[in-house]
């Protein structure tokens, strides 16, 4: 059966189409590009739009899983060591503590070191006094503590670096806001994939020899579109809150069965406290709530009493896709955190695979296993190279790291390079570089896309000033030319607000009042512009 494409259809050809721009998909993109396989990566939104962009950025030592799942724990340990070697610029090897407070379960505490040893994880017992020397904000009520080699990883830096490297290796391509509409299947082979560009509303047709579904929480939906019924996922919503400044030196875990509000992870200049885990059925409109924030804080305070007076600037939520396990019941935390690769042969498809589950720490291993399958299917005999090949991370992909922009700006010492975002000290040269050459720059860049590739809007003012300044700058640079800059600004601050809303009290309230005075009073973003005829024009 042939269909005639409408004239505005764009056609792409590639060896491997990867669906999903999370860390799983981009890791696979680079893995295959290193083997010489040309890839096309698509995402219905943008990079890290799902769980990859809404986690705490923890590079697991494995300690967190040592008691419940020692194989996963050992996997984390091995992969963590590889990433520390190959992607050092994206990682802060800050170390971590596991601490118990009065009332925590004695058996769990007593057996922890033995479980770590079984998984091969270096685990050093500390006295409560020693633990408080390492982390002075710990409660006086700490009764047991262990030091483990936990670390943190910047999920945006690692994702952008993977895409950029794949693009440089063999001109692999990334297309944002490109959503699958249907698979054309002929005789057990997907012959082409029809997509919709959610911004330009053009139709996109992609012809690929192999198609890999790495759509994260959306993987079940995508596999069903291809007629496969073997992927069965649970969805667990998790919420985290971000403080205005860094609270701890390293990662602080509660020494108990993983639960809510039991982990504090530094992220450069800030700290992230999490998480919650609630089963959800719907993937749309996931946002943090006041109740979740209050719950995380109440759970975290026994370990870190300073949380009571900490200024929080934002919260965010993501959905963890978890593989449905027979004995999991309704408890999302008991479902498997491991990953699984479906080759879909038993579903009658020869060139389709789905990669789901797993975690940030093991993304490289997941890509390796999948890359092996796809390379073999394509008759490519190149081995996986990601365990040893360093990940380049310079240029337009390095602006997501907290603290990088100010260091760079001071070093450069150019007074004409004006700071557009004062909280995070992001200069206009950073915005120019991102718009020019960051992954996705081939397309028209929205304010949200720029913010995802930098620290813009992530400081205490949460976009009050920088949204307006960056927009003005991009108009001045002729990047925007119609009403679209205003729409992008509206969209950006609306999205930011979803995260700001549940932590609005204390010092953030004046900030919010000022933001609204600027966004509505000065910019009139709540008003309908009388010029609406040009708003649909996305050409820029």
């Amino acid at each position: 059966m042939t269909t005639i494409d409408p004239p505005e259809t764009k056609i792409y050809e590639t060896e491997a189409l990867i669906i999903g721009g999370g860390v799983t998909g981009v890791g696979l993109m680079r893995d295959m590009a290193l083997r010489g396989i040309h890839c096309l990566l698509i995402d219905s939104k943008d990079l890290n739009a799902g769980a990859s962009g809404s986690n705490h950025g923890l590079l697991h030592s494995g300690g967190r899983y040592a008691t419940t799942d020692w194989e996963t724990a050992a996997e984390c340990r091995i992969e963590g060591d590889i990433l520390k070697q190959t992607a050092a610029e994206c990682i802060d090897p800050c170390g971590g503590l596991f601490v118990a407070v009065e009332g925590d379960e004695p058996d769990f505490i007593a057996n922890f070191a033995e479980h770590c040893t079984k998984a091969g994880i270096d685990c050093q017992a500390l006295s409560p006094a020693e633990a408080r020397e390492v982390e002075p904000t710990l409660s006086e009520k700490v009764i047991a503590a262990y030091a483990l080699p936990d670390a943190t990883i910047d999920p945006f830096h690692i994702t952008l670096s993977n895409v950029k490297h794949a693009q440089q290796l063999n001109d692999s391509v990334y297309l944002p806001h490109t959503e699958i509409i249907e698979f054309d299947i002929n005789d057990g082979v997907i012959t082409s994939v029809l997509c919709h560009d959610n911004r330009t509303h053009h139709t996109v047709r992609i012809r690929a020899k192999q198609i890999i579904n790495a759509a994260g929480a959306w993987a079940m939906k995508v596999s069903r579109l291809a007629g496969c019924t073997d992927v069965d996922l649970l969805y667990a919503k998790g919420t985290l809150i971000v403080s205005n400044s860094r609270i701890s030196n390293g990662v602080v875990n509660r020494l108990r069965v993983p639960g809510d509000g039991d982990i504090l992870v530094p992220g450069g200049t800030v700290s992230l406290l999490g998480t919650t885990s609630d089963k959800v059925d719907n993937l749309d409109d996931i946002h943090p709530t006041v109740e979740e924030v209050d719950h995380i804080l109440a759970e975290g305070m026994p370990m870190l009493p300073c949380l009571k007076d900490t200024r929080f600037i934002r919260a965010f939520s993501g959905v963890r896709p978890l593989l449905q396990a027979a004995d999991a019941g309704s408890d999302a935390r008991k479902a498997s955190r491991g990953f699984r690769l479906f080759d879909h042969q038993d579903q009658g498809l020869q060139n389709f695979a789905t990669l789901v589950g797993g975690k940030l720490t093991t993304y490289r291993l997941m890509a390796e296993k999948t890359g092996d399958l796809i390379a073999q299917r394509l008759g490519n005999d190149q081995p996986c190279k990601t365990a040893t090949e360093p990940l380049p991370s310079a240029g337009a992909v390095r602006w997501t790291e907290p603290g990088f922009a100010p260091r760079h700006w001071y070093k450069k010492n150019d007074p004409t390079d004006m700071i557009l975002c004062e909280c995070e000290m992001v200069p206009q040269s950073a915005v120019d570089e991102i718009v020019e050459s960051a992954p996705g720059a081939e397309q028209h860049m929205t304010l949200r896309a720029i913010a995802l590739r930098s620290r813009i809007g992530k400081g205490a003012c949460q976009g009050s000033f920088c949204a307006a300044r960056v927009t003005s700058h991009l108009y001045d640079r002729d990047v925007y030319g119609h009403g679209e800059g205003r729409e992008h600004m509206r969209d950006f601050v609306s999205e930011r607000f979803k995260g700001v809303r549940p932590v609005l009290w204390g010092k953030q309230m004046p900030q919010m009042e000022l933001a609204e005075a600027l966004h509505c009073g000065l910019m009139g973003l709540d008003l309908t512009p009388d010029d609406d005829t040009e708003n649909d024009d996305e050409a820029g």
Partner: protein
Amino acid sequence: MIAMKQQARHYKTQLAVIGTGLAGFAASIFALDRGITTSQVGNTGAVAYTTGYLDLLGSDTGNLINDPWKGLDALRRDEPDHPYARITNDEVRAAFERFTSGLSDMGIGYTEPGDRNLMALLPSGVAKPTLSVPRTMVAGIDAYKAGSRALIINFVGVQGFSAKELLANFKSSWPQITTTTLAFPDMESGAPVYAEVMARALEVPATREKLAESIKHVLGDAECVGLPAVLGIHNPDAVHKEMQKLIGVPLFEIPTLPPSVPGIRLREMFEQVLPTQGLTLVPQQKAQRIELDATGVKIHLEDSFGDVMIEAHAAILATGRFLSGGLGTDQDTVRETLMDIVVSQPANRADWHRQDYFDPRGHPINRSGLQIDECFRPLNADGTPVSERVFAAGTVLAHHDWVRQRCGAGVAIASAYKAVEAASKVPK
């Protein structure tokens, strides 16, 4: 060691105004008019965040209001707790006219409030309804209305203002805009330049001549010229008039991101002029404590020279909201920070804000504040006045949304007018 602390200062006055925003200064102006001796205290306040436009009522759940007076009539019907529901149109008009003529007399010319809203320019390239604007901005309103050929000027090194952004967003309603970028005289390096610095520089005649000269070079066939609000701090009308004469076509200012010159102008003018008219002003300091007894109120504060105490027959709270510190919040509750007066507010934090930032109904937290009686006295939970001697005015009042309704200046001015009127009747 010599003790640097001076002797405690003690002022006795009829009226104490707490707060140095629009409502506080309006209250002092109205009180001085009535011959009431007045002391005013307050921290820097939020005046520097204003565009300079004085709104009466500009928007009703997202719909722009053309006739604000009719809008007030409708508002009294629909929102009987709104501060405007306690003030007649005649009183609002009298207060507004007195305030704008007072500003003009003190040194910043403002347009007289009319029967209709003006459509004033915003830097994002939209126009918004307002009642009175600085004279330095009038030509822009006229040009927008007439669709005149306007040249909008940007300066090298200015942040958060883009002439091209104005052009792009006004494109269909005002196609005759052109733009250009000039280096501001003696600030040509490309390093950041700030509106306030440019405004102070333009008070020097030589700077004006240089700037006018470079504007004339790029004027072309433009019928008028717009630029960011930088036309002087202390005598903007004179700077504006002279620049206009030098250029030869009407000239107008457009508000910028804070700290904005129109706001700084107002604050500096109030601080300089009102003391010469009899006001005892203790600026840049926040009132720390207030005591009430049968004969009066005592306000305590401290500045770098030592303790200050103001003893008055009556006090007006014009302390503002969260940004100015009149209201504060913890994880569960909104509080009034000076006297812990009960605050009307949503039941839970989850109800403070709506899910959608730009929900046209606005956020319920922005309508929290002090409940008042007909005399603008804040009320206890049981509906009785907190005191016969304490009044409230401005954004600290409950049941209005100054940002979304575009009624901040109007509520400040009108409620100050009413509060002063009521305070003048307090027995001495």
